[in-house]
């Protein structure tokens, strides 16, 4: 049915990760409400959802930057992205 979408396992894993991240955010907010905006080091008000968005967008740029500067493998980009995500959720 969806063969026209040209699926591959890595892209399935990518979208599953996005889906799991969104579901986790919903569960997190339900179990422990606290998604009200707060002002972090960048001086902008962000909710938990905003911080997820900033993390994902930043990770995309980090991977593109790593790919442009160093090429494959992308482990370095992955480590920086994880560090970036932790930074965003803690301080932004």
């Amino acid at each position, binding site marked *: 049915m969806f063969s026209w979408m040209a699926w591959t396992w890595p892209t399935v894993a990518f979208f599953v990760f996005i889906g799991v991240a969104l579901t986790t955010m919903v569960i997190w907010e339900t179990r422990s409400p606290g998604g009200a905006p707060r002002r972090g080091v960048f001086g902008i008000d962000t909710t938990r959802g905003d911080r997820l968005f900033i993390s994902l967008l930043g990770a995309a740029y980090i991977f593109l930057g790593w790919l442009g500067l160093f090429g494959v493998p*992308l482990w370095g980009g992955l480590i920086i992205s994880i560090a970036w995500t932790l930074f965003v959720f803690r301080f932004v």
Partner: protein
Amino acid sequence: MIERTTNQKAWWLVLPVLVLVAFNAIIPLMTVVNYSVQETFGDNVFFWEGVTWYTEVLHSPRFHEALGRQLMFTFQILAIEIPLGVIVALAMPRKGILVSVCLVLMALPLLIPWNVVGAMWNIFALPDIGLLGRTINAMGIDYNFTQQPGAAWATVVLMDVWHWTSLVVLLAYAGLRSIPDAFYQAAHIDGASGWQIFRYIQLPKMKRVLTIAVLLRFMDSFMIYTEPFVLTGGGPGNATTFLSIDLVKIALGQFDLGPAAAMSLIYFMIILLLSWIFYTVMMRDEDQK
């Protein structure tokens, strides 16, 4: 005491929109992601390529040049259309029948389909039969947008300014109309000059609509395709080949679906980031009020 019942049933009302967005945006976008890591020669047969196309696009001089042209174009039209739109809005009458006349005249360019605008300007600017082209040449200036890169660029910019400054005018005019007369009366009592009225009353009151205007014009101009495609076809050479025109050339002209998918995702990321920055700045200003 009335007991308020809370439930989450209202979320079902969002479902139709969600389905619509899924089919017209999310699923196609997911397909583009899938294409971006594969090679195909048609017939629904694909070969895994990993991040090859992303590396290729990131190191491609052709992509860098198209991106540079795109940024330059967007910067130029914003630098012209925003101030010009404000000036025209300030010059428009506030009362009387002329208000309606001006509003209709301003709205006219916005109502013309984009491909028609491109075709109109193509004929208008032709050096042999077009009114604009013939006039410029009659003034002794050598102008031929079909052969001269500079002339083609200027014509595309002029066409966009003609087409879209009206949007800025209408938004700025709406902002100006929302200023109560009491502000002007107070300014006159204080002996404020015309510039001071503009700087301290009109401009701050227009800030919100102007931010929206900048955001709309940025996104539209960054994704511009139809008008320059009809007017110049991206030429002469690659002089007016913007990102979207280059993307279509790669995807449909060369049938390189993998590189085109990777390029479109990078293109999407750039628009997403810049739009998010504009939006965040706009919302921050709102929050500070």
